[in-house]
């Protein structure tokens, strides 16, 4: 279907497309709707005809600009910090690590340092685990490397990491307690671009006894707030793209 649209006039109606490809109209329509949702195909508002979409041009570099992501998510990150009372970071993968593209201070007016541009380890942070869980190439690369031990709780065995990443995919968020820094914990959830690809993660971090319950599990209310913030950012990317 994409090849058909890439050829000749590049503008075709539904019937034309279905007939040319020997598909039932309903089937063609379903495929077109899917392609439209991920912006590989656009529909002309006035004629109703279909053509190739802008997203195809960026297929090789299908990431979102880091500064664009910060700009789109800034209000949601602020809201998350206000609700959770914790500091918020947004991370993207860069060069085998988490690149912090946005940082909101913990709203308690203590002295804090802006951490935009910092690099965090993938295997020892909640942000990093989210990025690993949804990127098969990245997790394969992580498996081949030695997992550096940062605290006595850091996951250093690849089998263990695999189990944790499967769990992350199952529950839709990642947590970590004292795996990066003693006394600290973090919770993060995935940010997706239209079509479902995970391009970043948003999360909170803070004192382990604040983020986790007595059993050492991330508190359910905080997890809910993080997941909601991630969903809000994801929705805003759909809206404005």
């Amino acid at each position, binding site marked *: 279907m994409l090849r058909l649209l890439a050829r000749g006039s590049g503008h075709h109606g539904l019937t034309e497309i279905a007939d040319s490809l020997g598909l039932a109209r309903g089937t063609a329509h379903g495929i077109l709707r899917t392609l439209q949702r991920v912006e590989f195909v656009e529909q002309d508002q006035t004629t109703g005809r279909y053509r190739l979409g802008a997203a195809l041009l960026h297929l090789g570099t299908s990431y979102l*600009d880091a*500064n*664009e992501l910060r700009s789109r998510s800034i209000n949601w990150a*602020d809201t998350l*910090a206000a609700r959770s009372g914790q500091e918020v970071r947004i991370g993207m993968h860069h060069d085998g690590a988490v690149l912090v593209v946005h*940082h*909101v*201070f913990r*709203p308690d007016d203590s002295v804090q340092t*802006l951490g935009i541009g910092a690099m965090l380890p993938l295997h020892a942070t909640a942000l990093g685990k989210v990025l690993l869980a949804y990127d098969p190439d990245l997790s394969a690369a992580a498996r081949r490397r030695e997992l550096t031990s940062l605290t006595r709780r850091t996951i250093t065995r690849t089998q263990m990491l695999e189990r944790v990443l499967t769990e992350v995919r199952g529950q839709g968020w990642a947590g970590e307690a004292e795996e990066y820094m003693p006394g600290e914990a973090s919770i993060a959830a995935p940010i997706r671009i239209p079509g479902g690809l995970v391009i970043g993660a948003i999360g909170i971090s803070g004192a382990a006894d604040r983020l986790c319950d007595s059993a050492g599990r991330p508190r359910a209310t905080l997890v809910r707030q993080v997941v909601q913030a991630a969903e809000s950012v994801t929705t805003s990317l759909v809206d404005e793209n």
Partner: protein
Amino acid sequence: MQRFVMAIDQGTTSTRCIVFDQNARLVAVAQREHRQYHPRPGWVEQDAVEIWRNVDRIVPQALRQAGITAEQVVAMGITNQRETFVLWDRHTGVPIGRAIVWEDIRTEDLVAELGKKPGIEEVRDRCGLPLATYFSAPSLRWMLDNVAGLRAKAERGDVLFGTMDTWLIWNLTGGVNGGLHVTDVTNASRTMLMNLSTRQWDPMLLEFFGVPSVILPEIRPSTEISGVTTRVVPGISITAALGDQHAALFGQTCFEKGSIKGTYGTGGFLLMNTGDELVRSKHGLLTTIGYQIGGEPAYALEGSIAVAGSLVQWFRDNLGLIHSAPEIETLARTVKDNGGCYIVPAFSGLFAPHWLSQARGLVVGLTSYINKGHLARAVLEATGWQTREVVDAMNADLGAPTPVLKVDGGMTADHLLMQFIADVLDIPVQRPLVAETVSLGAAYAAGLAAGYWPDLEGLRRNWHLAARWNPVMDAQHRENEYANWKRAVELTFAWARSSPST
């Protein structure tokens, strides 16, 4: 029963209704855009009835979104685009023509003419503003001169004048059935008709602009509006009104003398609280009222940067070098410095502190080495240096350096720019957790008037730091770069002089 404060932000392109809780957290937002009319080149108008209808929709919508009733709203604050005004028939409530927007430059010739009238220096002394097209008085004079029969009708007392706060309050409190005809002191301070010392309409200014006093609303302190809605959602107390930039100053809790806020959107608006001191600028700034809580006003100095975010939009739309505004930062980071290139965006002249309407923009320092990354840097740096010029003027006028700049607006998402502003000012730049400082300021003023918040200290406790950029630039490098920027600005003056036709 949990209680809330509501703000209506009547902006240039849209009107919003926002509900806040006691911790200044945003509970609901409803928004509607209104049409911009450009009947002739340079004319910008809006339909005041459309704006009123939008308010009629968004207030109930915000209540629904928050899941609360009108009884739970302890106070409503109104904030608005400044200088824009409308005239309407006192007996029918029907506007006379459309509202004239602050961006409208139809009075260019009239302003040049008025500028030659005797008493013009006195005008600036009394109202604190230089004569310019975007303040209300010249456009009001234009209406009175150009709409058939209007002056006679106005003098008979059949016409009411109002900035957008006044228009909304009059309608919300009953319109033709006893609507309150009031404005707050900050909005009145942008008309050129109010005396800054008395904070009342000034007979000399009314005489100068030929405005009959009978059409003007009563001027009240920002927190003494004292109306109750009878329409839209009846029974809500309207307790405060403030111009949008003044509301931002208040929302940023810039309560101390010498504190400055900068709002970075299409343009940049810097306001410095000068406390009880009415500072007449010797460095090209405007004098205005920051806000007035009760008896005594807090005065303010204002410096506006005409082109800030709009330079990034120009870079995107007219040059096509980026796809979205935030990408300017990505492009700027492909190089380590500006490569000797500077852009002075004097698209429609230079505002504060130069005030040169004939100046035009320029790009200087081009060599074969310069690429689009350097240009992107120069675009962002232009906003930084313009901020430096305004803050320098503010410090010089007040005689003391400000310790920190509090920022808000869409461009605060640009990390490189915020760092650059901290670097060129050599003071920390701080971003608060609530980005909606304009609405928040109106809500604060309203809640303060209604006793929802006890005092300014209570409001200050709600202000939380979301980000802080500390200066790191080497002092020598900063001074060299600033000298280069100043040379570039001077070149725009030279260009203006050499082309009298512009």
